[in-house]
């Protein structure tokens, strides 16, 4: 493999891979935050509903 191909692959797949991986982590953590909300908030909501 020539240096040009190597460099371009690293640039595109490397940058893209990093962005996608962190994007995926961002989505997963947002979902986890929704599934497991902060306890005080959850309590407030329950109190509000009651």
């Amino acid at each position: 493999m020539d240096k040009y191909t190597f460099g371009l692959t690293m640039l595109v797949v490397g940058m893209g891979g990093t962005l996608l991986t962190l994007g995926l982590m961002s989505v997963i953590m947002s979902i986890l935050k929704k599934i497991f909300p902060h306890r005080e908030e959850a309590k407030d909501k329950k109190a509000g509903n009651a």
Partner: protein
Amino acid sequence: MIESFLSGFSGLVAGFLNLQWPSVVMMVVGGGLLYLGIRKDIEPLLLVPIGFGCILVNIPLAGLMEPHGFLRTIYDFGIMTEIFPLLIFVGIGAMTDFGPVLENPVTFLLGAAGQFGIFITLVIALALGFKELEAVSIGIIGACDGPTAIYVTSKFAPHLLGAVSVAAYSYMSLVPIIQPPIMKMLTTEKERATVMKTGRKPVSKTTKLLFPLVITIVGGLIAPMGLPLLGTIMLGNLMRESGVVERLTRASQNEIANVVTLLLGISIGATMEGRIFLQPQTLIILALGFLAICLDTACGVLLGKVLYVFTKGRINPLIGAAGISAFPMSARVVMKEGQKYNKKSYLLMHAMGANAGGQIGSVIAAAVMLSVLKGMGII
């Protein structure tokens, strides 16, 4: 008898007779690093042992880096096996509160943009004639993360370890000088004065506990070659957040991190032998490292500008500059710069989120890089 005296005496002057100019220059460089660490307070925990190691290894005939030499033994044990940077990572994980990035997970993206300098610099290094794995090691200076740079370089280009490590740690400490002009150049005054909503969005204990596990599993599946980096930082963080292994957490934050920092520093200094270090390529590596960190900042700010447009002016693009791994220094720089243009602007918590994202981002970028290299059959 006289012959015996003379030969005995020759043993005492042999060091002076074998002293060559590259060694003298490197002793001065070692002295310079000690000066920066001791008098200027620039990363003293690292620059002091690195500077001293540099002086030690350049004293002729001591054989400290020869097989079984004292520095060679430490180097082989900790650097060649990658144990030292990984133990440092456990400590970093144990010290870092990833709460700010979890409060606003979109800042993970800024942590990704803050790593783009790695890949752009890699391409420039290739264009300047460096071999593939050397270019990878030079690019990784842009991770702005010493242990990551050491981990990757010791694996793929150990002969560049001294230059890469010195560049990584020096530029990290120069973040307050390097970043502000780039931030100013790429943003308008209106953008810089943007006030972001304050008010914390607390994260549950369960989410904080799941965070290291999820990141390890997802990151490990995507980029298994970087799992040692990711796994160790996340182990440290899990210990911190679990709160049930306080002794281990404290040991990782203090005793282990301190001992390893000392040994790591002296081992890096030991790679700075004059005949190896004093090459034109060292200067090029230092220049490329500087460029990498400038590019990281620029890419982070540019993504910040994109988010500014998408959120209709609710995100201050300056926080993009904090998407690098220099934690929490970069966040403080952003806060200070924001306040220069609007006294009502409190960017610290938002910038801390981007900065914590940058810490994960640098590890992910290295992990992705290693796995792409593996996929391409280069390693």
